[in-house]
């Protein structure tokens, strides 16, 4: 059946902010869905709260709503969009979209607005997601599942656990990424895990299940059309056995250790499952466990939608699941859709791989001190890398170096005493410990017993260890290493850096020897069909083989380096910028080449750039691609810190880096030189110093005066950044910091207390400057900018300060000769020593940091002002191609580089900011606290948020309320507010309390705060602090009596009390505000919510209004 003509308009729900368990993969799937449905001629309406996505770009849908993904806002959207032939597609927006669709269906909203659900029926979704229904369905098919029971209270749970025996697994129903799940080995642990799970589940139920710990784990990605054709797109085998969430497992495609009989049995089961569950059109993911010695096959679970695994499967096979699924949802059959890559053959087939794909998760436990770094049924990784090689060994080692741990391989200190423990209990550094154990001669059998990892995988690692040992034995060094041995090592995936370490030589000399021997990689294609048919899509990976399939074209070309695995501080925003660069340069006539290793992203969609190289972002791998392609230029400033670190080495290797010069980038990062530049420009910055030793650090801090802000240079996301209040804390910090900083110094700044922080994104073409936006942070300085909510336009900054900010921005752009994007962080804070007798403090604008590159806020600003900053930046950067090249390019049909003054004459000449119209746009962060029990959820200079959302409204209060809601913080409209603040915050707290009282909130406060508020005449109940006695505030939280918490930190070290409060609040999902600025905004937001109905804004209309002005 071809396209459904009865449908006219399709509403797509996105997945909202990036959180652990739901990342860029849904931007990838959503973007694909938008693109194909638009191309099919449907009116596409998109709802997503995440501005950093490609899918929320105005061109991708006809109408885009950047609104909270909640029932009330979806109702408002549907009310505006209702009419004949409206459908809702909920299967490309992850669990968020699916849950929301069910909520809308159950509440009768879909019927009310006449909206048809396509892609998956409510019945199918429920059957797949409801664990009991699912089990029943499996039983009906004659398929086994682990023994289990649905539990709604602790007593039943304990009884059942005793019956099936420990360890048992608890899985809360309807939560994301296994949130709140866990393995319990005893009653005590089980009680805790079950209680948390029951609480986190929206329906307050958990499936308590027999543990298949240590079994082999597999996944199949299937797709089905309405003619009941079913195909398996990809099979995946987990390196880590059952017990580790699949998102936290190293996974391998295709399956490596199953015979055909076993594989087909699994395939039959999977097909039976998708049919029984009734997923009529679209993708599904089905997980299986297989007993390692009996082969018993059990079905674990199914996702009736595209998922993280399907994004991986799409990238691993070249079969775009979401794109196909979207077309199936509107009526097409698989055999009516062509395979993009072969063009001639249909999408109705099963891809076959002639390579091996390995996915490795990336964890950031170092950012969450107190969190236990063990892996279990709840996902904790923040990102992942994928690597392609001709063998598992090659793919595994490419994957390992794609992770960018900042350490050289094998560098990690192995604690011999922990060896067994680390092997037995899954741990983020498991691979390192495995390698260590193998190098020590531990046998495969023993390792298998300890880890339950399949012996075949262990053997591959043992082979690698053998090759390494063989090379390390060559005492003659790099010159005498036999070429065959070198070739064997490269074919096994060992990096030049690793080989150099083993041989005790420099990476350069290793590379020189290797190239002299002609041992260079070739590039092969990912083509879905193992070369059976010709492929037309240059989706490439490197490998050490004979034949190359990537002959460069003759077209002018620019390469863009991506940002690698998602991590806190370097996420989807950078992928957005990279994609935009590619789009803009393609329009300009260039061939674009993307290099990246993150399988979740839009940038690694083979549709995004002319050529895609799926490669680690190391100098070795990247330079090989660029030399092979002989690029006219490479862009390093869009992918965050990862490619930026390659700028100078690439330039030294003779590769033309375009845009702001690597020297300027380096200058901005180099504290001393940058400080000198600011001094020369007369721009103030907080007093600062640098240090490479503890002594230097102490001396600098004494000179500057405590508190100081300390951090290593060259990091993103404020990794290892801290506010230090005294000498002992500083010494402690320095001891730890050397691990990250090595030969790069630690930066020490005066910490500006009570300052307002401002972010500015600007564009420059080397002559003129355009300021894209001035964002005022809601939290004061000291909170990492990525963790602050911020507002466009600024709402409380004096005009003179804004003028100064604009002026400084222009000066800095010119001084750094910026071509492309630049981000500046300013603070408006007290002038040192300016406090007069009257208490009046003079304030001024300080520059905190300059980053001559794309920043995290670029997509947010672009959406707020309706100007694609990253696209324009990419075009401006072509102005730095050599003059000869530029003239030549023009001859070859490339459009000339635009000038900013032609594009934005009025803003450039008057040095004004791009307008935001009469709306406020608020960006708010989203935190992963719920995933890390034991971690203090307090904001500070180190970034912890994983994603962001945007709220749009005519008032600041409403925009903030929407952003908070979109971030999962539902501000209460009534109830009890708890307030506990130190003396300095008490005056502001009084204002907040008064407002809350006016809104009808009852007030609860700790003694000091309560006394202050009472004195001002407010009715307040006082409550014990945790240590003071009981019932204390935590008891109130747990009792569900508190609806809002305002608790600002008391001093240098968060007290036990505050930590316990914040922890309890996170667990009970009570909005907790830790800064007074945010408290003020929250109160305003509550006021706005009390007075308004959900109002929604269409991005395209906003942009039209802005353009009209």
């Amino acid at each position, binding site marked *: 059946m071809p396209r459904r003509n009865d449908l006219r308009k399709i509403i797509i729900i996105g997945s909202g902010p990036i959180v652990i368990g739901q990342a860029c993969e849904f931007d990838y799937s959503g973007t694909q869905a938008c693109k194909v449905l638009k191309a099919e001629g449907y009116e596409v309406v998109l709802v997503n709260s995440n501005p950093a996505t490609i899918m929320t770009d105005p061109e991708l849908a006809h109408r885009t709503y950047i609104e909270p993904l909640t029932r009330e806002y979806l109702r408002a959207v549907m009310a505006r969009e209702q009419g004949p032939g409206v459908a809702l597609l909920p299967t490309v927006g992850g669990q968020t979209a699916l849950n929301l669709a069910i909520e809308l269906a159950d509440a009768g909203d879909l019927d009310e607005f006449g909206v048809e659900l396509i892609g998956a029926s409510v019945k199918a979704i429920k059957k797949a997601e409801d664990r009991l229904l699912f089990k029943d369905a499996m039983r009906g098919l004659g398929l086994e599942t682990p023994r289990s029971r649905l539990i709604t209270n602790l007593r039943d749970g304990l009884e059942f656990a005793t019956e099936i025996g420990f360890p048992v697994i608890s899985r809360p129903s309807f939560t994301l990424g296994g949130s709140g799940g866990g393995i319990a080995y005893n009653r005590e642990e089980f009680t805790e895990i079950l209680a948390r799970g029951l609480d986190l589940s929206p329906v307050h139920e958990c499936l308590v299940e027999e543990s298949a710990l240590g079994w082999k784990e597999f996944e199949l990605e299937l797709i089905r059309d309405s003619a009941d054709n079913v195909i398996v797109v990809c099979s995946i085998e987990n390196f880590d056995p059952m017990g580790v969430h699949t998102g936290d497992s190293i996974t391998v495609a295709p399956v490596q250790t199953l015979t055909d009989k076993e594989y087909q049995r699994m395939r039959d089961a999977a097909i039976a499952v998708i049919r029984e569950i009734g997923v009529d059109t679209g993708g599904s993911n089905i997980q299986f466990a297989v007993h390692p010695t009996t082969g018993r096959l059990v079905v674990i679970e199914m996702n009736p939608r595209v998922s993280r695994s399907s994004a991986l499967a799409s990238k691993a096979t070249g079969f775009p699941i979401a794109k196909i699924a979207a077309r199936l949802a509107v009526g097409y059959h698989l055999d009516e859709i062509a395979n993009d890559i072969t063009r001639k053959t249909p999408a109705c087939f099963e891809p076959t791989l002639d390579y091996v794909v390995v996915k490795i998760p990336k964890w950031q436990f170092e950012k969450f001190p107190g969190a236990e770094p063990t892996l279990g049924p709840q996902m904790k990784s923040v990102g992942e890398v994928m690597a392609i090689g001709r063998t598992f060994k090659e793919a595994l080692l490419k994957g390992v170096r794609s992770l960018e741990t900042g350490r050289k391989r094998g560098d990690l200190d192995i604690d011999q005493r922990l060896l067994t423990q680390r092997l037995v209990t899954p741990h983020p550094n498991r691979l390192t410990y495995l390698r260590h154990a193998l190098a020590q001669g531990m046998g495969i059998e023993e390792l298998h017993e300890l880890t339950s990892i399949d012996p075949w995988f262990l053997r591959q690692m043992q082979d690698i260890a053998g090759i390494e040992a063989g090379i390390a034995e060559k005492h003659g060094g790099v010159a005498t290493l036999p070429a065959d041995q070198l070739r064997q090592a490269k074919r096994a995936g060992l990096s030049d850096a690793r080989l150099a370490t083993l041989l005790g030589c420099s990476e350069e000399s290793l590379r020189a020897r290797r190239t002299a021997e002609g041992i260079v990689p070739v590039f092969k294609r990912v083509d879905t069909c193992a070369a*059976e048919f010709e492929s037309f899509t240059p989706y490439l990976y490197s490998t050490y083989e004979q034949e190359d399939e990537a002959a460069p074209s003759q077209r002018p070309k620019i390469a863009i380096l991506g940002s690698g695995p998602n991590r806190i501080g370097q996420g989807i925003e950078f992928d957005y910028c990279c994609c935009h660069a590619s789009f803009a340069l393609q329009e300009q006539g260039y061939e674009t080449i993307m290099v990246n290793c993150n399988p979740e992203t839009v940038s690694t969609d083979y549709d995004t750039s002319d050529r895609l190289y799926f490669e680690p972002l190391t100098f070795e791998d990247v330079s090989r691609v660029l030399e092979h392609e002989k690029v006219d230029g490479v862009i390093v400033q869009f992918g965050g810190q990862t490619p930026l670190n390659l700028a100078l080495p690439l330039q030294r290797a003779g590769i033309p880096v375009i845009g702001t010069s690597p020297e300027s980038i380096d200058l901005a990062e180099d504290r001393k030189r940058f400080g000198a530049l600011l001094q020369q420009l007369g721009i103030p910055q907080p007093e600062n110093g640098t240090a490479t030793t503890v002594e230097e650090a102490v001396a600098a801090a004494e000179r500057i005066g405590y508190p100081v802000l300390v951090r290593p240079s060259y990091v993103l996301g404020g990794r290892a950044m801290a506010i230090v209040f005294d000498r002992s804390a500083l010494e402690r910090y320095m001891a730890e910091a050397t691990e990250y900083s090595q030969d790069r110094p630690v930066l020490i700044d005066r910490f500006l207390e009570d300052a307002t922080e401002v972010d500015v994104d600007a564009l420059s073409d080397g002559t003129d400057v355009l300021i894209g936006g001035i964002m005022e942070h809601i939290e004061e300085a000291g909170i990492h900018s990525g963790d602050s909510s911020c507002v466009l336009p600024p709402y409380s900054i004096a005009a003179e300060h804004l003028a100064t900010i604009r002026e400084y921005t222009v000066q800095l752009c010119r001084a750094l000769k910026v071509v492309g994007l630049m981000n500046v962080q300013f603070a408006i804070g007290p002038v040192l020593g300016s406090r007069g007798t009257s208490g009046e403090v003079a304030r001024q604008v300080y520059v905190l940091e300059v980053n001559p590159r794309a920043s995290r806020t670029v997509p947010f600003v672009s959406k707020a002002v309706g100007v694609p900053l990253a696209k324009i930046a990419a075009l401006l950067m072509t102005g730095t191609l050599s003059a000869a090249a530029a003239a030549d390019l023009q001859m070859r049909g490339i459009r000339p580089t635009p000038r900013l003054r032609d594009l934005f004459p009025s803003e450039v000449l008057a040095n004004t900011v791009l307008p935001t119209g009469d709306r406020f746009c608020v960006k708010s962060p989203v935190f992963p606290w719920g995933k890390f029990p034991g971690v203090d959820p307090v904001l500070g200079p180190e970034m912890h948020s994983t994603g962001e959302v945007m709220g749009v409204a005519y008032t600041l209060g409403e925009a903030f309320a929407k952003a908070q809601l979109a971030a999962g913080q539902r501000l209460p409209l009534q109830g009890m507010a708890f307030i506990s603040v130190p003396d300095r915050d008490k005056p502001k707290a009084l204002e907040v309390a008064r407002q809350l009282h006016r809104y009808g909130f009852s007030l609860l406060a700790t003694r000091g705060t309560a006394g202050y508020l009472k004195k001002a005449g407010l009715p307040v109940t006082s409550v014990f602090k945790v240590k003071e006695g009981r019932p204390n505030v935590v008891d109130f939280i747990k009792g569900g009596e508190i609806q809002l918490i305002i608790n600002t930190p008391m001093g240098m070290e968060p007290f036990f009390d505050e930590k316990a409060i914040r922890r309890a609040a996170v667990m009970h999902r009570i909005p907790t505000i830790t800064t007074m600025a945010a408290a003020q905004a929250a109160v305003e937001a509550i006021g706005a919510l009390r007075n308004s109905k959900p109002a929604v804004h269409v991005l395209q209309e906003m942009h039209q209004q802005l353009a009209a002005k």
Partner: protein
Amino acid sequence: MEAVLALEDGTLFPGLGFGAAITGVGEVVFNTSMTGYQEIFTDPSYAGQIVCFTSPQIGNYGTNSSDDEASRPYIEGLIVREFSSLASNWRNEETCQNYLERHKIAGIAELDTRALVRHLRQHGVMRGVIVRVAAMKNAGDREALVSMARQAPSMSGRDLAKVVTTPAAYAWDGGLHALDRAVVASEDSRHVVAFDFGIKQNILRHLTSRGARVTVVPATTTAKDVLALKPDGVFLSNGPGDPEPCSYAVTSIRDLAGRVPIFGICLGHQLMGLALGGKTYKLKFGHHGGNHPVKQMDSGRVEITAQNHNFAVDPDSLPADVERTHFDLNDDTLEGLRHRTLPMFSVQYHPEASPGPHDSHYLFDQFFQLIGEWKNK
């Protein structure tokens, strides 16, 4: 351990030898299945061929006694990117290395198999030879190697069915594969006579699982001898080689047509095509894999099939009373036919799979349905 693969067009691929240290000669084909190497080794349809697996790592799960498709392997040689000496699987009984050595099959690894596949795709299948370098008098003598490759018999015009078939008729008494589910047996047992042109055991398992009593007969068995066995249905098996020289089988099929329900697959399909007046031709590089989409022309449904054939029936050569029931969606080759009036049908692919997806098992049910209908007539 150094070895080389030489092709008849003069292309050489150096690599490392594994398996038996002997020379392997045959027509080089590639197979795109990602699982099931043991079944492929033992598929008689691969007689005379050297198989290159596109899946890069082979040998991972070892071998076992229940996954054989015949009493011995038939491939002439094996080409893989990386060969696993370690076998890991709960059903493993013997490493792949030992298995190949025991059965005297030469293998070569560590060569650019993707380059080889692309070469075969562009230039068509060709003959080749796997030689251990140590066994060569003059290592690197391209001429000698290429002439060895050229000495291999070509598949075209070659009757291999006669070579691999059973010397005498026998009754099949093997049950189902341990991992397969039983299909409900029909109430009254049918007698199926299966022509062995190179039959795979999984076919026999499928026939018996549906309650049939099966007699396997040699390829050259006449229609008269078949009818003497009083069959309820006749099955024409898969097999290696060119169908055209198998005129004895074409005659038998022609004589059986309309007298007993006939179901043919693969070579059996090609022979049925010839018997019905059609023509066959050789494909450039054949279909060998487990992911080929085949469309059922009546229902419009698509099944993912296991295929292994170098020849095909020309759909335009078939007379009007033959319905073209299945087509390959990748290249539009004919994949199935059915006579409009006589009880006979056939498919080019492998409904028994092994290796491959099980989407086409229904064809066995159709066969038994046809037998039932014929009986009730």
